[in-house]
């Protein structure tokens, strides 16, 4: 076996080890109770019974819908707020801009978990518990996204902006007509990243939702795991598959873009 063969073998073995837990979850989701207990690795038949059962026993559809709405709202909110802020940092010069820039940087030093108790109290006093507002609005502002877009906006020549100012084009028109189209790819990267992170949020939804109508799908998984369904691993894994399918598809479709974007953000 040559060097190439050895390389392929190492790649295959490590690849299989990495995806095994995911693959196994898929396979278990098709198994019947007995097969799981026997420790089968491959289901006898690919029956969808567990999926029907999962949708019957917990309001999975409601949870999925809530997660989708929350993720889309956070994604949209972050795109709008980050791009607006990045635009100001690149094109509009005013007193105190540098100071505000450092303020943005400093937000990255505050772990969100350290602020969760007062945040919970704030959301509670606003009457936002069990609402999309409470689940999404606290996450609209994001320093990382602002910096990522700022890097991209910087590639647009300043002269273009100055010319548009002389021609009497409003700042907002320049922003939507010139800047945003140029930054389309970076915006897409940020959108994928935002959606992934929002869909996978766990602690905050756990704190601010306590009824089935407003729960996200991640908390639905916790519910499935703690209820009596827990011994029915096939059904639980069907739930897991429903939760991970959207983000896995998104990741596979946007992997390259995500990698380039994150590296850009990491290395400034």
């Amino acid at each position: 076996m040559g060097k190439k063969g050895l390389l392929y073998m190492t790649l295959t073995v490590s690849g299989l080890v990495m995806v095994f837990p995911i693959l196994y979850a898929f396979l278990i989701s098709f198994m019947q109770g007995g097969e799981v207990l026997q420790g089968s690795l491959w289901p006898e038949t690919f029956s969808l019974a567990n999926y029907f059962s999962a949708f019957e026993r917990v309001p999975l559809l409601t949870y999925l819908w809530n997660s989708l709405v929350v993720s889309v709202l956070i994604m949209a909110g972050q795109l709008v707020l980050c791009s607006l802020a990045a635009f100001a940092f690149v094109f509009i010069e005013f007193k105190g801009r540098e100071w505000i820039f450092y303020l943005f940087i400093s937000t990255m030093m505050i772990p969100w978990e350290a602020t969760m108790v007062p945040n919970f109290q704030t959301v509670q006093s606003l009457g936002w518990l069990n609402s999309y507002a409470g689940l999404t609005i606290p996450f609209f502002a994001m320093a990382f996204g602002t910096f990522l877009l700022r890097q991209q906006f910087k590639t647009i020549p300043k002269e273009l902006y100055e010319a548009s100012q002389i021609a009497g084009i409003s700042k907002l028109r320049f922003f939507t007509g010139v800047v945003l189209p140029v930054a389309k790819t970076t915006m897409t990267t940020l959108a994928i990243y935002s959606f992934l992170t929002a869909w996978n949020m766990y602690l905050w939804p756990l704190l601010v939702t306590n009824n089935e109508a407003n729960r996200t799908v991640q908390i639905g998984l916790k519910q499935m795991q703690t209820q009596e369904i827990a011994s029915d691993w096939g059904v639980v894994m069907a739930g897991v598959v429903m939760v991970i399918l959207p983000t896995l598809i998104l990741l596979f479709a946007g992997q390259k873009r995500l990698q380039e974007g994150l590296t850009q953000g990491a290395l400034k």
Partner: protein
Amino acid sequence: MTGMLFLLPSLILFGVFLFYPMVRTVYLSLFLTDSQGVPVVFVGWENFLNLFQSTSFQLSAKATALFVLYTVPAGIVLATALAILANQKLRGIGLFRTMFSATMGMSVAASSVIWMFLFNPSIGLFNRILGALNIPGVQWLLDPQYALLSVSVATIWMNTGFAFLILLGGLQNIDQSLYESARVAGVSESYKLRKITLPMLSPTLFFVTTVSLINAFQTFGQVDLLTKGGPMESTNVIVYSIYKDAFINYNVGSASAQAVLLFVAVLVVTVLQFKIGERKVHYQ
């Protein structure tokens, strides 16, 4: 003026949901609070003093430190190895890259449920493997000796995808002509790794280390789902401890004091990142 207008939405949200609550947390940490979290009596440093003297907090600090120690170095070594492995020009390499980055699409909740099954004492994979080797099974998540280690292994797996993607990006940014010259000079693979790949990758490695450290301090979901901080508080990492104190024991003062300590820990890591990062730039 218009500049401020563009920044205002972000600034307001940072103010309301980050700076205000951080200040408020520091404030609450100096008070005894009622069950609603309303400050009642000013007690100064007492919450902190109580923490340092409580066995429970000492266990939590120990669990957090061990968790960082178990997950960060191993996770980075694994992700770096996978990234180097996947940074080859081979037919079908895209498939392997997808496999290595797959965990980035996995939520903490979904991953934890899967690992819960793998760790299951009677039907889980690990005990089946042990059984096949005639080794008695282990109560992975119920034995204080193994619980934190088990959660750490699951966490390393969960975090690999993200670290892998960033490190692969870092590898692809390395100037290929360096390898070209190395090939012409006929140096060995291990020499190339030590003298070109790792030094050129060091800024990315450094970034990934910082992010991993901060993430490790912020761990919550897998502990909540796999062990609930047990057994015997062996997995009661700091964020889980804050959560329990604030939302289960209704002791907001103590939770806030722990939150302040968490903030300090993350601050130290971040400041170190800036300091060391800066020095690196000067050397180049």
